[in-house]
């Protein structure tokens, strides 16, 4: 990486370079250049994508920013690509892929987020809850773009693990969840068992989330991870799966567009309402739309061995066979 030696442009933004990729921004757009091509994206969308990629440590599999640009996680190294999962780019042989160390690309993205995010704009927030990403450089929002992702070792609320959320800890109930019951379970622990008799109101906890489209671990049964999240507007990225992933819709409704992971050909739309459960196969990519802030339980098998198991035929591409 990195920040180029050039002075910031006339709008006050720095240019970034990692390997063969160069990134620059103006008032409205980000321009990405690589040895065989170039591409532009609106800067608000770009920042929302980069923010997720950073927060998730490149997540599971592929994070497409759009139909051209994205990253692919190899859990130690990460690919940055242009046109790799776009048939036209591949056919024209203008697709490009470069592999980086996990931290090298992460550091580049972090520096970019800090420099390109203006005061008052929060890439994690719903559009109705934040300011503008556009215009000349104006301050920063480092507090928002460096949020720590919640990763519980056993369960949120267990002594020594991730804490509950409250007004006092800076997590007020979101405007769209004002009607969510905040009552906590009744816990009657025998003396000596206070640390093991544990329960909390997950729905109230989620109602106090200050981010959107950011799965965080609230409970872990070995490598089975509950990663609930609150969703509003669109999932900015198109997530390409490298393993089967499951969704449980806790509240309201999300509609998903599902495409072939490698070609982008449309495969299905999945309409999920409260109580619905659906799997995302390991060979698709998906993006979601939530018209009202909703609660979604993303369920992951966090084993790093799964992509190799799928490649060897030891793990299924589809969730169940019946």
């Amino acid at each position, binding site marked *: 990486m990195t920040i180029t030696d050039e002075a910031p442009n006339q709008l006050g933004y720095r240019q970034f370079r990692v390997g063969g990729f160069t990134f620059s921004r103006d008032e409205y757009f980000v321009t990405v250049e690589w040895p065989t091509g170039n591409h532009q994206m609106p800067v608000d969308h770009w920042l929302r994508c980069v923010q997720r990629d950073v927060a998730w440590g490149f997540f599971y599999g592929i994070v497409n920013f759009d139909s051209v640009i994205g990253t692919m996680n190899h859990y130690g190294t990460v690919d940055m690509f242009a046109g790799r999962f776009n048939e036209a780019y591949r056919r024209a042989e203008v697709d490009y892929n470069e592999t980086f160390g996990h931290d090298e690309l992460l550091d580049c993205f972090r520096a970019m987020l800090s420099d390109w995010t203006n005061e008052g704009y929060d890439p994690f927030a719903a559009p109705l809850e934040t300011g503008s990403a556009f215009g000349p450089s104006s301050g920063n929002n480092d507090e928002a773009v460096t949020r720590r992702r919640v990763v519980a070792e056993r*369960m949120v609320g267990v002594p020594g693990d991730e804490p509950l959320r409250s007004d006092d800890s800076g997590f007020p109930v979101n405007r*769209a*969840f004002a*009607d*969510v*019951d905040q*009552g*906590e*379970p*009744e*816990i*009657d*622990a*025998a003396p000596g*068992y206070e640390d*093991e*008799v*544990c*329960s909390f*109101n*997950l*729905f109230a906890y989620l*109602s106090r989330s200050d981010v959107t489209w950011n799965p965080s671990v*609230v*409970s872990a*049964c*070995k*490598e*089975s991870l*509950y990663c609930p999240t609150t969703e509003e507007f669109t999932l900015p990225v198109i997530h390409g799966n490298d393993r*089967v992933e*499951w969704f*449980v819709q806790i*509240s*309201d*409704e999300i509609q998903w567009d599902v495409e072939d992971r490698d070609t982008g*050909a*449309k*495969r*299905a739309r*999945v*309409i999920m*309402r*409260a*109580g*619905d*459960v*659906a*799997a995302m*196969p390991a060979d698709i990519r998906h993006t979601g739309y939530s018209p*009202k802030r909703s609660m979604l339980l993303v*369920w*992951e*098998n966090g*084993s790093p061995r799964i992509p190799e198991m799928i490649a060897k035929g030891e*793990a299924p591409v*589809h*969730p*169940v066979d*019946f």
Partner: protein
Amino acid sequence: MTDYKTVFGSLEDYAKGGVHIVDDDPKYYAFSNIFEVASQAAPYEKIAVGKNLEYVLEAIRAEGTSEWRATPHDEFALVMDGTVRIELFDPTAELVDPSTGGSVTLHGEPEGNPMGTVTAQRGHMTMLPAGKAYRMHCDGVGVVLLQTIEGPDTVYRWADICQTF
């Protein structure tokens, strides 16, 4: 300010979505609904609604009092409907091989120490600690979603619960 209404589901009131196929097989999405599954289940039947290798999500109809179960690893019970009372028990002897997956049925009352109880309502998540025993009680009918590993009592009924066309 907009007055938002959050829509949760229940046994009495749920509106199932679905998979709209463009060019695929709906079975690949294993689409089901927890409340629909629980509405057609026997009390405390552990019906898988999600499976990821050895890990499962089980939809459980809570009605009356369950058997005692022992779990070799942490499990997590999320109440999706109703009010469910969970008793936790610390057994004197090891009741289940800690290297196995999934909880097992105990026949009769375990010996040991009561750890306490949790009375959980919709949205409340309770840890069922590794090496301990538990049972559930619901005066009416409730629904629990259990995060666990497949075990001897996990029920697979995919063809009955999932969208197939």
